[in-house]
């Protein structure tokens, strides 16, 4: 008779291999980071500039500059660009972030040679046609109106605004009042100052041959790059201290809650211990918050806490959408769980589960070449090395209940929290 009560023997994860990207410097000073992995004959090539929100001299201009790169060049119109890329079945993305912006192309290897010239065009001779810009402004403003009907969108936006101040790059959002006055020339200025002839980073991952690598090197090494390096524009933070904010939204069935506090940048030594502490509290499906608020009380479909760390600063936040009648109860339960984290040591079984889960989840996040590129970016742009992940693994393996208690006492104090509720009570 098969014993179904006793779990099969299992092996703790003690060895996680991370395939590293390697870096080569092109003669013009551009860094090309590559990883050849996977089995399908395809790749992603990313061109990354330091030209995000932190570098803009006018609110929202960096966002529109990068989104407009594909809307017209000296040789092609917006529709010709899209038609050209689509005919090779490729996908192009224009990404915008606090620190960096990027243009990424996803393509089958066989079409790379056709696509490289147009990528060069997009980053070197965009024309920012006014007709396309006005249309994009209009579309963006209207999409924002749709998003602003969503309690969870509003709650996240307001939380970040209050936490860092609405003008700080970490707190700034897209906003109609910022977008309206933007003009084509503002985009051109941002482009000339931060993208045109500026140094960029290339990340190429996938399963490709020396031919594709050679094509990429040859294409980008011929570009002229000046040596000027811009610094982020530093703005004072206008942070709101611990406080509670409620925004009534008529007709809400649920309230969206955000509660959290400012932390530190990614290289801070407390990161590892806090990562485990957060996981236990609200980071995974088996967390305290999920068990209490979803699995025992059924107030919500989901509740999560997370660490959001930028290079210089960061925050910790709990987020959930709950049945409106239980808004106050949920807030009280979050406070109760935070208190418990600070007073009662985690028991051995729970600690073992969370450690193994985190290691497994980390190993599972290294599956594809695209995953591995993200892992690389996580260190490279924060001036860290792969040792960071070795340390991550070791710290998870070695952390004790006492460490977690001390970390919770340092960071999970409910009296230090900023609370935002959008909805109804």
């Amino acid at each position, binding site marked *: 008779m098969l014993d*179904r009560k006793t779990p099969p023997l299992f092996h703790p994860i003690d060895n996680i291999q991370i395939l590293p990207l390697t870096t080569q410097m092109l003669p013009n000073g551009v860094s090309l980071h590559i990883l050849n992995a996977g089995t399908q004959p*395809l790749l992603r090539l990313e061109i990354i500039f330091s030209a995000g929100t932190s570098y803009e001299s006018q609110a929202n201009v960096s966002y529109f500059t990068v989104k407009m790169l594909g809307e017209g060049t000296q040789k092609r119109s917006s529709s010709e660009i899209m038609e050209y890329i689509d005919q*090779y*079945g490729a996908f192009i993305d224009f990404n915008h972030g606090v620190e960096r912006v990027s243009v990424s192309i996803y393509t089958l290897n066989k079409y790379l040679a056709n696509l490289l010239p147009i990528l060069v065009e997009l980053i070197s001779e965009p024309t920012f046609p006014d007709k396309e810009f006005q249309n994009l402004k209009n579309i963006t403003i209207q999409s924002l109106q749709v998003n602003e009907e969503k309690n969870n969108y509003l709650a996240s936006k307001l939380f970040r605004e209050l936490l860092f101040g609405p003008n700080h790059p970490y707190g700034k959002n897209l906003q109609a009042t910022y977008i309206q006055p933007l003009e084509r020339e503002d985009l051109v200025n941002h482009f000339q100052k931060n993208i045109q002839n500026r140094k960029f980073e290339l990340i190429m991952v996938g399963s490709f041959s020396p031919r594709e690598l050679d094509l990429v090197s040859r294409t980008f090494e011929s570009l002229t790059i000046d040596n000027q390096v811009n610094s982020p524009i530093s703005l004072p933070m206008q942070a709101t201290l611990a406080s509670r904010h409620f925004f009534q939204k008529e007709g809400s*069935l649920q309230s969206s809650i955000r509660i959290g506090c400012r932390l530190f940048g990614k290289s801070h030594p407390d990161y590892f211990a806090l990562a485990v502490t957060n996981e236990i509290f609200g980071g995974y499906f088996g967390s305290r918050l999920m068990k209490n608020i979803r699995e025992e009380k059924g107030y919500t479909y989901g509740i999560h806490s997370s660490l959001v760390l930028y290079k210089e600063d960061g925050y910790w936040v709990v987020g959930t959408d709950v049945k409106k009648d239980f808004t106050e109860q949920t807030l009280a339960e979050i406070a109760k769980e935070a208190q418990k984290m600070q007073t009662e040591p985690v028991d051995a079984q729970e600690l073992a589960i969370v450690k193994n889960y985190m290691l497994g*989840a980390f190993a599972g996040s290294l599956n594809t070449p695209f995953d591995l590129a993200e892992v690389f970016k996580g260190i490279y742009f924060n001036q860290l090395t792969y040792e960071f992940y070795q340390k991550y693994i070791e710290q998870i393996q070695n952390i004790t209940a006492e460490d977690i208690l001390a970390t919770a006492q340092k960071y999970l104090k409910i009296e230090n929290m900023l609370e935002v509720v959008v909805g109804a009570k």
Partner: protein
Amino acid sequence: MIHYEHFTLANGLNVYFHQDTTTPIAAMNIIYNVGSKDEEENKTGFAHLFEHLMFGGSQNIPSYDSALQIVGGENNAFTSPDITNYYITLPVANLETAFWLESDRMMSLSFDPEVLEVQRKVVIEEFKQRYLNQPYGDVWLRLRPLAYQVHPYKWATIGKDISHIEQATMEDVKSFFFKYYVPANATMVVAGNTSLEEVKRLSEKWFGDIPSGKRYQRQLPTEPPQHQARFEEVTAEVPLDAIYKTYHMPGRMHPDYYIADLLSDVLGRGKSSRLYSRLVKDQHLFNSLNAYVMGSVEPGLLVIQGNLNKGVRIEEGEQAILAIIEEVKTQGIPEAELAKVKNKAESTLLFSEVELLHRAMNLAFFANQGKPEHINLESEKMQAINAEAVQALAQQILRPENSATLYYRAKAN
């Protein structure tokens, strides 16, 4: 090419193995051949509620999640109108834990009344979060019954009404389980760096003694051909007017499915598609606009949906969409445009195969349909389509009498 091997246990459980020696993480995917289309009309939302109950403990294992987490595994599940799909990824060294967990809950659940009470509440909050407390969230709750009058696709997987979920009983739970959650009605895929022998050994060991049950024989009403255009209009607290149009089309396994898929790409996939380039980019009528197909197993829908720019009347937007449809029907599409959407479809397929779990899931889907070989034929079928076939299908399905249209008006206007 996705390589796989297959065997069937004596109790009827179909098992597929896909080997991949390049990753230390293995995947297990199990489909139960039951979806929301198999529900009774007065007990909708049940297949999905049941999916939640599958995580509430089985006969010998009180906590599914923590038993998996402690071996470094992750899991999730989804319910569609056609299937209920459960999946696990975990270090391949701990693969046996997945067999232990999945076989125990296939054998028997704990049927804990408290689990039912809590998950009922969770699902009701999911209903609100996704469908009621979102702008345009209830669109499919309205569109499905407009497009389908007889076939059970007329209700959404979340259910027709919250009251159905409120009224579910433990008796319903038990009878559902013993009818559908049996080896003969399941398909399992194991993928990763292991061997067929090992998968056979573990399958026999853990699933071999589960009573077979019967393969469920589906007898669903057929949706009769639609002969008259359908129309509905709603006004709600949303910032922009929106339009949704559906056209009946062939199901996922029908030879013409891929033609409809390419047709929808020509119309409205991506920025160089006809609808987007003309009506969003050139004419500035729409804020967003796209076309896609529902990949449902039984006859499905080709959908066109868009949000209108402020100041543009829905009627005007609709006329512009219809003019583009008319053009495709009367003039057909150039070979170059067809080649473009085929190339896009080919890359989409290859990019979707990068992730092991995704390969396992696709294989399980086709295997559950009785056609696992289909997973390697998709690209070929797509490439074989010519422009005449696309035009002919456009003429056949993009007719007003075959359509349902929903005007979603913003209250403020």
